[in-house]
């Protein structure tokens, strides 16, 4: 799965996710990537999120929109909201995976409970950051 959240110079957030699903899946299984609110969400009122992981858990928790709701309605900062959902709630359910997220103010977060996630970030005038582990 791959995903991106972008903030443009007009202050607009967008998020996108694309995937091939899971190896040897059957019965027309659909994961979280195409499910808005679970694997992908964006709102200029809060943040944008793209997810990767075992989709069934992300669907049950509506992970992407849940993180944005914590930012919008509870005033959490983006990293705290992301960690609450991924490190606490998702992990407690037995789910695994991670997210990348971004707010209209340019705050960036990622959170994952797997040993690694391919991830990268950059801001205007800043240096690129790439991580794997």
């Amino acid at each position, binding site marked *: *799965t*791959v*995903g*991106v*959240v*972008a*903030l*443009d*110079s007009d202050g*607009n*957030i*967008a*998020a*996108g*996710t*694309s*995937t*091939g*699903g*899971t*190896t*040897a*899946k*059957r019965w*027309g299984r*659909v*994961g979280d*990537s*195409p499910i*808005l609110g679970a694997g*992908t*969400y*964006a*709102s*200029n009122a809060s943040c*944008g999120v793209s997810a*990767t*992981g075992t*989709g069934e858990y992300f669907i049950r928790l509506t992970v992407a929109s849940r993180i944005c709701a914590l930012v919008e309605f509870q005033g959490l900062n983006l990293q705290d909201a992301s960690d609450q959902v991924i490190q606490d709630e998702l992990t407690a359910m037995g789910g*695994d*995976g*991670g*997210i*990348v997220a971004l707010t*209209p103010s*340019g705050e*960036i977060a990622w959170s*994952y409970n797997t*040993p*690694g996630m*391919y*991830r*990268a*970030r*950059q*801001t*205007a005038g800043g240096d690129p950051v*790439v991580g*794997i*582990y």
Partner: protein
Amino acid sequence: SDWALVIHGGAGVIERGQMTAEREAEYRAAMHAALDRGEAVLEAGGSALDAIEAVIHGMEDDPLFNAGRGAVFTAAGRNELDASIMDGATLNAGAVAGVTQVRHPISLARAVMERSRHVMLQGEGAETFAIEQGIEMVPPAWFFTERRWASMTRSLERLGLDLPERPEGAPELQGVDHGTLERDEREHRFG
């Protein structure tokens, strides 16, 4: 201009020491290239939606990632692709599921968002819409990679399920390094 970009290329049991230096370098280069594509759009004043599409196009064409070319196979021996996109300015959104012949599913998701009354299209109907909208179509074999095929056959053997026929148009059978395959399966455990 103030812009920002954050990208993921999947999560899994990726542990330092289990990945070869060559493979790690490939992934780091691919992630830097993805940032470069997004930066090019955003630095020029392009929209966040255009940046999303530009970044994901390259990743959908890169066999390193489980999206587009390089996607994993279903038990039926097909590559079934899903994508979604959402515009935070309007809360408009588009998504597609289970498409097999669309080179860039993210662009089809955007077309659903911008050129239909709907949010989510799936399967054959989504592909009919793609053709009507002039979205680039490719034969299913475009997405074929030997390592994903081998990974799928290993999974089916473990499950005791029948193996599907090799897809029409797939290249001649190539050898795969099963040690590398095991690493791949850990690195991309999740869809």
